């Protein structure tokens, strides 16, 4: 007698505890093994690109906050930077440092949040709360400087909105110290755990060629052995003034992506420390052209500018026709590109690996759906 297992279609999401928002994954399973997977997105689509065409240049900045709401500073930055590139603006020194400080702090916060939620996907509940405790210290610092905890709307075309309050730099230094100590604890709590290693090592392997071909970027790319970080290979802002490494790993599995992100937290903290030392005590924080928010009119032209967000390469393709509103804004969202590979990566995996692999890509749905 031959037996035969019927395939079953399983809809994971849009409402599911570990799809990190409203992501939907249509998988067919044979027993617990996935035979095909189709990511379906768009449940959080807000038409950001369409909205941009009807808003003045500086009015679109708050919308960029809502793309990757875990790492809003870099979104702010890349949009402003692309407009600045078209206009050829020089950014005041102090503003550059404030940008770096906030972006790197935000990157640490984003990685911490990823760490917590990823471990939650893996079934460990405590790391989530530890991560949130530390993330909160950073959010407090960002709150002090920008007035918001998640959607900062801090950067402006030509500089930043607010100068650092009294004693802020010192408090940032303390926060860095604190987090560095705690991250070490996390490492000892989680990274060496047998169950965790058994679940993450060798799981969700992405080869170097595949990672490049699928357009992966950020930690997911670096975990596959491509030593590429836009901060280093194509320094924007003033990243060339800092001394930091690009953590890479060759394994290309979930564990490698985990390790790369943990190592990146240390590197970001290094940058923050150096920026704290180097930042000029006072000075302009915004270019004079940027101060008149509604009067910004870049010359005709188009530019593609990219930066390294915590999830990967975030880019803005901006077309200007010398009007108050941008002609076309295309947002290259790293999560949108990174999540594509799932349909290939999940085939043949058990359901338990699905959440591990999906979690390891660090996807934010606000960014996927724009």
């Amino acid at each position: 007698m031959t037996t035969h297992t019927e395939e079953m279609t399983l809809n994971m999401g849009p409402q599911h505890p570990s799809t990190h928002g409203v992501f939907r994954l249509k998988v067919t399973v044979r027993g617990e093994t996935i035979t095909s997977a189709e990511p379906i997105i768009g449940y959080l689509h807000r038409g950001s690109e369409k909205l941009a065409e009807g808003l003045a240049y500086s009015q679109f900045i708050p919308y960029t906050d809502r793309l990757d709401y875990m790492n809003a500073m870099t979104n702010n930055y890349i949009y402003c930077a692309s407009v600045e590139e078209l206009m050829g603006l020089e950014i005041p020194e102090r503003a550059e440092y404030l940008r770096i400080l906030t972006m790197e702090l935000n990157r640490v916060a984003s990685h911490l949040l990823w760490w917590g939620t990823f471990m939650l996907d893996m079934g460990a509940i405590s790391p989530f709360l530890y991560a949130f405790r530390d993330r909160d210290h950073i959010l407090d610092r960002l709150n002090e400087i920008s007035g918001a905890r998640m959607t900062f709307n801090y950067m402006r075309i030509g500089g930043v909105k607010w100068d650092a309050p009294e004693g802020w730099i010192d408090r940032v230094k303390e926060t860095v110290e604190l987090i560095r100590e705690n991250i070490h604890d996390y490492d000892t709590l989680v990274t060496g755990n047998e169950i965790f290693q058994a679940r993450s090592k060798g799981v969700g392997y992405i080869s170097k060629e595949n990672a490049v071909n699928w357009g992966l970027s950020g930690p997911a790319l670096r975990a596959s052995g491509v030593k590429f970080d836009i901060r280093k290979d194509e320094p924007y802002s003033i990243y060339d003034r800092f001394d930091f490494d690009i953590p890479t790993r060759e394994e290309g599995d979930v564990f490698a992506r985990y390790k790369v992100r943990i190592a990146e937290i240390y590197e970001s903290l290094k940058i923050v420390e150096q920026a704290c030392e180097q930042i000029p005590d006072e000075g302009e924080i915004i270019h004079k052209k940027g101060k008149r928010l509604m009067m910004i009119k870049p010359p005709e032209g188009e530019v593609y500018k990219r930066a390294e967000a915590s999830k990967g390469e975030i880019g803005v393709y901006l077309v200007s026709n010398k009007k108050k509103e941008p002609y076309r804004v295309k947002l290259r969202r790293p999560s949108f590109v990174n999540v594509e590979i799932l349909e290939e990566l999940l085939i043949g995996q058990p359901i338990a690996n699905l959440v591990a692999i999906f979690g390891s890509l660090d996807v934010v749905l606000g960014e996927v759906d724009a």
Partner: protein
Amino acid sequence: MELMPMVLYAGVLLQLILAGVAAAILFERKVIGYMQLRTGPNRHGPWGILQTVADVLKLLIKEDIIPHAADRKVFVLAPIIAFVPSFAILATVSWSENLYAADLNIGVLYFIGLSSVTTLGVLMGGWSSNNKYALLGSMRGVAQMISYEIPLVLSIVGVVILVGSLNLRDIVFFQESIGLWLFIPQFLGFVVYMISAIAELNRSPFDLPEAESELVSGYHTEYSGFRMAFFMLAEYVYAIAISALATTIFFGGWLGPDFLPGEFWFLLKMCFFMFVWFWLRATLPRARVDHLMNFGWKVLIPLALLNIVITSIIKVWMG
């Protein structure tokens, strides 16, 4: 015992167990809370003591929802089948030298045998819900419970060989006579027992049947209100029962210094086991289902068998 005292005993025990479950849930939430830099429940009553009461009350007055596509009869029956054996096995537990319901000669066998019936409840619940997650969860649950039943039983066999009785009270008397708690001579068995007990209880890190991040909440996804409460109740009563069994066979039951009654020592030891399970839950990530099966069949069962062999040799050698 006569019939009337027996019924009375069961009634009182049920009340106590319900109170115990409420306390256990509170205990768990507090312990995990403090481990996670929180205070845990603290709104209802002093120290959050009434939190579980409020939770149970909420579950009881919730609307009773049976999914349209569910198999009604099986759906309704499942939580009961899951709960009843969990309570029935407590009959053999001897809380102190004098406080017990049944002095069964086959106590261990009764305990282990009856507790497997719950698997049926899990399967019925998962199947009848007509929900894919529930089905996957119940399949995992059944596979896991059946697989881990074996090392659990085998780990106790060592004790049974040593004592020469299946009676739970005799096991304690034996420990009294040799002046040693059995987890020392039976250390290997004890370790196997602890691990398979966690898997048997579906507790973290082996909580695969209700793996929240994968299967929403596994076999009881579609359950709500008091039916859900029954599943939860069964789970916690089992946690208590398995702790009680561990206390009895490995930790000398009610034995302890004389200045406090045996019940106290028994409860204290039980609390220790409960604490260990909560502690593990706050610390470990979830294992994967195939790893779990591999571990059960390829590591735990051989270890348990090895333990039996060693114990038999010692027993024969010692005469």
